[in-house]
């Protein structure tokens, strides 16, 4: 083999400007390689474009919602029979007691607009979301003085009506549907024409809480966003100090021996452990042994801290290593102690790198679902907005990726749209965090 190659390399008497067969071959190989590289990038770009367009086209619908404006007469005979405005007695009327008011209101609405329809009032009221009764009851309890008056409300329309306005539900698709009929859609068309039904931006999707399977139109990602936020607070408060302290010690102070070698290998290995393993660990240690509450963002945060620590330690050590030894030597040379040299000179120079690593670690933790499955953060959970920090940490809550996963599982196709909408919000967070990391690196990192 080598003999053959040697004999081929013998005749080299041509000019550099004329291409020999061998040069041509080499040049062709290079061109091919470049073409492969470009093709690989194109494939990647194509995938990205495909992903982004799918997400945006499927998810933007979730940010808009259909509303029906309707005047409701708050009948005293239904809501406060004794008429003494005692709040305790008003509270005794359940949401089921409010349903007749909506039926009457819808009937009046159709009659006032003189739209002809053969639908019964039950089917008229079915155009409204199931959340309307709850909204009405909450309003009456907050404003008992309005009982007996007629008040204008803007209720959510039920998911099929919303889907019809968004083009997801068509007349063909409702043939077998018992939730809506073609006749109801005729009425929807008429109400859209007069402006009673309209599709507008829906802030509640971003700020609201999760809703049950019967009312996808009322579901929002806000509470689970708060859950994610509290988890990230825990991760930041624990992983950053522990991670930085550990890496400073390992990098600057620890002696090099077999023990630190073992620790180093283990940290590198931990970074590659599947996240579900941390979930099982969290279940065993934090919930079963330490008796912390189930489904609490505090536990979620602790589990994600374990998951993020290796990432932070590795990036912090890399940042510390990148600070040239001359800085340390100079500090020690003018009489600084080892600790002063590290904290006054090395750490500030390594800070941009540390922060970048931390933000990337946090972004990774923010998008994590698997460990949350095991500590009970997936389900119909994000229903109560936390009011205090302690409540935010301890009362059951979900997280954004877990909420998206939960929505994607539910039967009503309207939830599917919300899952995509949730992905958009999650991606906005991730992109923002990564952009901050890039900016930090660009602006403050020093090259030596």
């Amino acid at each position, binding site marked *: 083999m080598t003999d053959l190659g040697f004999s081929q390399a013998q005749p080299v008497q041509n000019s550099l400007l004329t291409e020999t067969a061998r040069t041509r071959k080499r040049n062709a190989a290079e061109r091919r390689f470049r073409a492969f590289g470009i093709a690989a990038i194109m494939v990647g770009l194509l995938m990205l474009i495909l992903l982004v367009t799918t997400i945006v086209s499927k998810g933007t619908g979730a940010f808009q919602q259909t509303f029906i404006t309707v005047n409701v007469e708050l009948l005293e005979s239904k809501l406060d029979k004794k008429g003494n405005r005692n709040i305790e007695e008003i509270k005794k009327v359940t949401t089921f007691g409010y349903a007749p008011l909506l039926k009457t209101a819808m009937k009046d609405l159709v009659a006032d607009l003189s739209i002809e329809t053969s639908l019964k009032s039950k089917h008229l009221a079915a155009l409204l979301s199931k959340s309307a009764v709850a909204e009405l009851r909450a309003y009456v309890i907050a404003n008992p003085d309005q009982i007996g008056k007629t008040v204008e409300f803007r209720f959510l329309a039920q998911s099929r009506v919303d889907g019809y306005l968004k083009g997801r*539900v068509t007349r063909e698709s409702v043939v077998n549907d018992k939730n809506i009929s073609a006749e109801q859609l005729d009425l929807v068309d008429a109400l859209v024409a007069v402006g009673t039904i309209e599709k507008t931006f829906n802030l509640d999707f971003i700020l609201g809480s999760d809703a049950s399977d019967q*009312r996808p139109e009322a579901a929002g990602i806000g509470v689970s966003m708060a859950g994610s936020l509290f988890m990230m607070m825990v991760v930041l408060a624990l992983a950053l100090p522990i991670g930085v302290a550990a890496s400073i010690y390992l990098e600057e102070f620890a002696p090099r021996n077999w023990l630190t070698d073992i620790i180093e290998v283990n940290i590198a290995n931990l970074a590659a452990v599947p996240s579900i393993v941390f979930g099982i660990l969290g279940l065993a240690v934090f*919930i079963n042994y330490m008796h912390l509450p189930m489904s*609490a963002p505090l536990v979620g945060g602790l589990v994600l801290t374990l998951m993020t620590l290796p990432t932070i330690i590795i990036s912090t050590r890399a940042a510390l290593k990148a600070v040239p030894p001359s800085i340390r030597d100079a500090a020690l040379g003018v009489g600084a102690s080892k600790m002063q040299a590290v904290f006054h000179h090395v750490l500030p120079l390594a800070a941009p790198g540390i922060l970048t690593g931390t933000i990337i670690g946090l972004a990774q933790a923010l998008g994590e679902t698997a460990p949350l499955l095991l500590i009970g953060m997936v*389900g119909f959970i994000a229903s*109560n907005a936390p009011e205090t920090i302690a409540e935010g940490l*301890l009362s*059951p809550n979900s997280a954004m990726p877990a909420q998206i996963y939960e929505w994607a599982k539910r039967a*009503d196709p309207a939830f599917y749209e919300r899952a995509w909408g949730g992905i958009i919000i999650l991606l906005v967070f991730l992109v923002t965090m990564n952009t901050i990391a890039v900016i930090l690196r660009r602006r403050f990192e020093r090259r030596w």
Partner: protein
Amino acid sequence: MSFVKLTASALAIAAVSASSAAARDQVQVAGSSTVLPYASIVAEAFGENFDFPTPVVESGGSSAGLKRFCEGVGENTIDVANASRKIKAKEVKACAENGVTDIIEVRIGYDGIVFASDINANSFEYTPTDWFLALSDKIMVDGQLVDNPNKTWADVNSNFPAVEIQAFVPGTKHGTREVFEDKVILAGCEATGAFEHLLAHAEGETAKAKKKAAEKACIALRTDGRSVDIDGDYTETLARIESNKDGIGVFGLAFYENNTDKLQVATMSGIVPSTESIATGEYPVSRPLFFYVKKAHIGVIPGLKEYAEFFVAEEVAGEDGPLAEYGLVADPELEATQEAVSDEKTLDNNS
């Protein structure tokens, strides 16, 4: 150092949490993913109508839920387990070993199991025998028990089109699987005579043990890829059918009713599944749904009894309630259930 302060405060938060963990104020529910939508509808309405916080409902399957339910008594165990089947004697025993003795069983209604294919694919009219012949591991051919040779639906029943058999059935951790086995496969097994054959050749000391062995052999499904276990939710089954138009899936009635634009339902023994045909008992494949309440938690966890009572109230679980609207078949004996809940009637320990 601010790092030190941060760590100290974080540790303080953790310490506070450990002590205040003893003050859980919302009901925690876990279990069957079939019951999950009903439970979340009730939980939501409960939160709206009472001053208690909205209960937390997790899914994960009947068996997983009952296992967590039986872990013990105390604040960090769940209060209610949802199940799409009755609790097993084995589970009651496991519960008792962990100190969970007084269990209140609440039947909320019935749920139908339907067989559906893609809306543009072939429609089917099944009998349990067809499903047994299509999916069983071994079937009877000329009086002999042989490995299932059927490849297409036409092999099973000459009235069916000659499309490949591809069925997506719930995995073994789902309560739905058990109903599918009992009401469809086992019924087909008995109808084809395979059951008698198996019973005659079954090993066992007593007649009861023999019957059990024969039943177990009956419900063994083929493992050559024509029957696929779906461990996830119905959305996964739906996705499989959308990508494989010849596939037939097993769904809950409520799920089918929410996706009538994508699925068409097959009849079973000539009956179209609907809440009415299930309520009258004409449609054969249905099962009761339950939830189980830990009596020891009543009075400790605020709102637990109220939640249980609210769940079975006439306006919630009755014929015109939101649960029936979503697809639950109301229980005709709801009144008895309401009484049992308000009396906190527990399961017999020897059951």
